């Protein structure tokens, strides 16, 4: 096992750069999620690590070995494709043994033992002699996963593996992936466009935009402390406002509208002027008693969207529209006049 190091990695298709100067270090046995909208270059980045694409510039290192010029068949990686890419004419057992056969790993008896281990790992006992088309989507996925790890790869690469599954199966597979990764202590790189998936699975989230890295951090950092409006928006901050940030008499403030100047925490770069203020919809509170909050703005509830456990409230305050997520206890109806509150620490100046 080994970490992955990318240095100044560039991949151009024609003039367009799919991956544009990416430098990144994924430590040994960590679970990294590469997150971004479609077309941000995340899949190309994964394919560069796998060796399925040749970089225009830069280096790829696995452990201490420079593999930039090494073809994929010699990189000793495991990769799980979005389409699973099982060989349709081979049974489950034959599919699982395929990497061992190709790499001439051990005797036939050892290979069979390893196949049995892999079948056990993904709980597919009894399915060994089936063909892929006789399996459900979730089972096919588990075969593909077992096949990707059977030859003890140095790194496991996952290309949107859960996107073809339905919601419940997806949740089950997430748990399975985490457990597998911890059990095998495999350095894992996971590509996804789903921020919930990235946040719940990864030790480390790499947010990409237009071929570049927008922000790297732990799920907590990247969710709680987005550094750019793009990061805030992509990670689900529904409330983003243009504000005028000022610094007077040791206090930092943001002007949301006339009669609506709110205190904020000092921004990381200490700059004043036109900035953006990000507020998560679950950090906003609708209350008739604003005591205990740093900010309270008079507000009117415009729309309530029932979503089961929670409801989403569209609220007008300071001439802006806010989106608020709250449970039943909020006890609010459309047209109600009340206070929109939050704590200074929850407002992020970008």
């Amino acid at each position, binding site marked *: 096992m080994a970490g992955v190091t990318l240095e100044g990695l560039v991949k151009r298709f024609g003039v367009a750069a799919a991956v544009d100067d990416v430098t990144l270090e994924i430590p040994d046995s960590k679970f990294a999620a590469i997150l971004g909208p479609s077309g941000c270059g995340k899949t190309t980045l994964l394919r560069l690590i*796998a*060796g*399925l694409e040749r970089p225009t510039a830069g280096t790829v290192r696995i452990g201490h070995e420079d593999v930039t010029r090494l*073809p*994929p*068949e*010699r*990189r*000793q*990686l*495991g*990769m799980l*494709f*979005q*389409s699973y*890419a*099982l*060989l*349709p*004419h081979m049974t489950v057992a034959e599919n699982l043994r*395929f*990497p061992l056969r*190709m*790499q001439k790993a051990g005797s036939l008896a050892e290979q069979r033992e390893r196949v049995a281990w892999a079948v056990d790992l993904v709980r597919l006992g009894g399915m060994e002699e089936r063909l892929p088309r006789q399996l459900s989507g979730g089972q096919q996925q588990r075969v593909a996963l077992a*096949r990707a790890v059977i*030859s003890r790869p140095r790194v496991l*690469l996952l290309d949107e593996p859960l996107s073809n599954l339905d919601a419940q199966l997806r949740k089950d597979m997430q748990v399975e992936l985490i457990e597998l990764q911890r059990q095998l202590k495999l350095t894992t790189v996971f590509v996804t466009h789903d921020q919930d998936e990235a946040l719940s699975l990864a030790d480390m989230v790499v947010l990409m935009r237009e071929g570049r890295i927008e922000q790297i951090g732990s799920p907590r950092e990247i969710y709680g402390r987005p550094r750019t409006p793009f990061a805030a928006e992509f990670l689900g901050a529904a409330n983003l406002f243009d504000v005028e940030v000022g610094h007077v008499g040791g206090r930092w403030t943001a002007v949301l509208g006339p009669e609506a100047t709110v205190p904020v925490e000092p921004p990381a770069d200490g700059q004043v002027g036109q900035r953006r203020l990000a507020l998560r919809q679950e950090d906003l509170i609708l209350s008739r008693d604003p005591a205990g909050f740093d900010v309270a703005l008079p507000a009117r509830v415009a729309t309530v969207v029932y979503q089961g456990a929670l409801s989403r409230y569209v609220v007008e305050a300071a001439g802006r529209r806010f989106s608020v997520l709250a449970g039943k206890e909020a006890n609010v109806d459309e047209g109600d006049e009340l206070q929109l509150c939050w704590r200074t620490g929850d407002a992020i100046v970008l």
Partner: protein
Amino acid sequence: MVGGIPLVARFGGALLLVLVLVFMLVPLAVVVGSSVSASEFLVFPPRGVSLRWYEAVLSSDKYLSAGWTSIQLALVVTVASLAVGTPAAIALYRFRFPGSEALGSLFLSPLVLPTLIFGIGMLMLFSRYGSGPSFFALVLGHLVITLPYVVRTVGAVLHGADRHAEEAARTMGANLWQRYWFVVLPQCREGMAAGAFFAFNISFDDAVVALFLRAPGIDTLPLRIYSELEFSPDPSIAAASTVMIFITVAMIFVIERILGVRRLAGSGR
């Protein structure tokens, strides 16, 4: 399931189906029927029942040697068109290269050009630059008209196959040859079977190209039947044709056995 379909349409559909079956099966029934006739002449309905014409065909050197030539020819053509057509289809449908579109159309052109013109062209070519008509010329001529089918059927299954399977095999350590042997060729198999079926039948059936390209001593079964029909039309022709039908049906089973295919004539997916 058909509740929403008006009665007239249902009736019309049934009528069409019956007509199709009549047009497809009645000629076969006529041939098979007149082959068991006891009469000296080729007539339908048959007069009396007798297998004498089968005896005549199966003890005739002319028919037997022509049949043997046809089988050999069809087998050689089938193997050759698989050997040439499969790699061609892989190249055309797997890799996009400059001119691949044009090359694809060129491969399919024998489908649209009249076979007669083709035969004449081939004859002139072989007479000018080769040793004239021969078994080899016949193989080449048939290869040209069977190739489009192999390219088409193999291409169709490749088109529907998971392209990532090859890349996945790469990440699992398979080198170029292993990827072709374990991934690409098995993907082609159904298309190869369908292509082989077409190639065998077209070659076995062909009378037009063979008319131009056969050497004087070589006779194929369709040509034999044709010349018998011209000079001495008796029920042996029908018997020979029935044997031909049986050979074709037998061939379907053989190909099915070798290449293991369920949807022989389908587009592959």
